[in-house]
């Protein structure tokens, strides 16, 4: 069975993350905590540092400074243990062309150490309403279907933390609704924490309980959607987003 030493109710704790590339500082002292079962959106304009932050939290990019713990497992030393409890999907990552959907899911089930990956794969396909795709080849799927399969892949081992980078970017509204419903069910039934980036503010408000805004690699706001819109004196999250993208100025105060 998957076991882990949780540090209280924290699924992810990242503190003081810094990442500097040649073109400049992408992430500049980000603190980010996601509670067990919490649904958090990481928002910000292009180049704000969202994806770099996610990649550091997955152990794919090494921070220049700062610490990351997933369910009590410190990265990078305990990456393998930590990743057993993490699922990841990104709307922009394709499916390999030469495998059937079930084969692809079986592969990742094995990588996550599942004893019965086929059962987990079928349950995941059913949860997101795409059981009929089990025998389809990667090349036969639409971009929306590929995204759905990617999310099934990320969630099939019942992770404690699900990291999703723009998960519904290529989905029509009906399928995006199915994804949101499936993710909310996962979170309610299994206590899976979600960390989601998206440019769809409506979706974020419907799916996530908390929003963390990044700008210029820094956290500039952290709270519920209502708290953030109040703080910036704007009508909704989209308005806050446009404001941040337009000003691109110094942080307006870190909230906690």
């Amino acid at each position: 069975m998957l076991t882990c030493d949780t540090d209280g109710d924290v699924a992810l704790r990242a503190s003081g993350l810094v990442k500097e590339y040649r073109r400049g500082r992408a992430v500049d002292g980000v603190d980010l905590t996601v509670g067990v079962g919490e649904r958090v959106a990481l928002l910000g304009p292009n180049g704000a540092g969202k994806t770099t932050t996610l990649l550091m939290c997955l152990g794919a990019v090494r921070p220049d400074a700062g610490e990351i713990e997933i369910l009590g497992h410190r990265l990078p030393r305990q990456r393998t243990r930590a990743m057993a409890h993490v699922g990841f999907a990104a709307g922009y990552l394709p499916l390999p062309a030469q495998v059937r959907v079930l084969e692809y899911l079986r592969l990742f089930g094995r990588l996550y150490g599942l004893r019965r990956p086929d059962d987990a794969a079928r349950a995941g396909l059913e949860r997101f309403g795409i059981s009929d795709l089990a025998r389809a080849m990667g090349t036969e799927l639409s971009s929306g279907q590929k995204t759905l399969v990617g999310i099934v892949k990320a969630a099939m081992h019942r992770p404690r933390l699900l990291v999703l980078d723009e998960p519904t970017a290529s989905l029509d509204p009906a399928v995006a609704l199915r994804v949101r419903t499936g993710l909310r069910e996962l979170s309610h039934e299994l206590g899976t924490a979600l960390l989601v980036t998206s440019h769809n503010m409506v979706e974020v408000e419907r799916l996530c309980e908390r929003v963390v805004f990044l700008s210029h690699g820094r956290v500039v706001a952290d709270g519920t959607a209502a708290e953030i819109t109040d703080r910036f004196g704007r009508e909704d999250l989209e308005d806050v987003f446009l404001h941040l993208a337009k000003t691109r100025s110094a942080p307006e105060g870190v909230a906690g």
Partner: protein
Amino acid sequence: MSLPTYGPAAGTMWRVLAIARRHAYVLQRSPHRLFDVLVWPVVDVLLFGSIGVFAASQATTGAQRVALYLLVGVILWHVVYQAQIAVATGFLEESWSRSVLNLMATPLREWEYIFGVALFGLVKLVVGVGAVTVIVWGAFAFNVAGIGPAMIAVAALLLVIGWSIALFVIGLVLRFGSGAEAFAWGILFVVMPLSGVFYPVDALPALLRPLAEILPTTHAFSAGRTVAAGNPMPWGEFGLAAAGTAGLTLVGLGYVTWMLRIFRKRGFVTRYS
């Protein structure tokens, strides 16, 4: 509720097997890749075997030996080449299919990945070299299996050399991106003439001989020729090949580890996403 999972040791085994299976799917669904595994080895054997037979038919002194060297050389060459190409293109496959980030976000360890690709590469090697062995026996009446276990020891060294060179290629691709993938196919063809695959390195221009002497492949091919000619294993030569292979493996591991560190530090994973 959590799902039943394997313990650490069984988990590692299943991850290695899963990677091997993933690459089996690639071969199964892309039959043109059989060219590397089966067609080119067979073409090479027919080409070099026929040259050898022609040379032998001229009845000049030593012509029989040239034929033997060509046949043994081409078989051993395909051991090192297939081992290298399987692992190197295995990683390239992940970059082509943009799977690198998906794999990095799982519990898969880097060495488990390499083992998985190498394991399936071994299966391809057995198929390819097996076919070649049958052809040289059927077409040229040369029984490789009759040479004995000494040849297996030489082949094992060349197998490890192939994997070690693949680590360099992976390191180059990690560092320089897919632009470095030409090395996967080209690097061994630089090593080939210097290693005396088909001839003793005495035949090389004098300037190149010192360079040839430091390559473990040179000593492995030399030991292979000696054994194939019916002589006992030249242990000195074999020892040099083994020591060189051990050194090359360590350097290869060190290089790919270094490049992986740079890959993570500079965020190069975004090249594949």
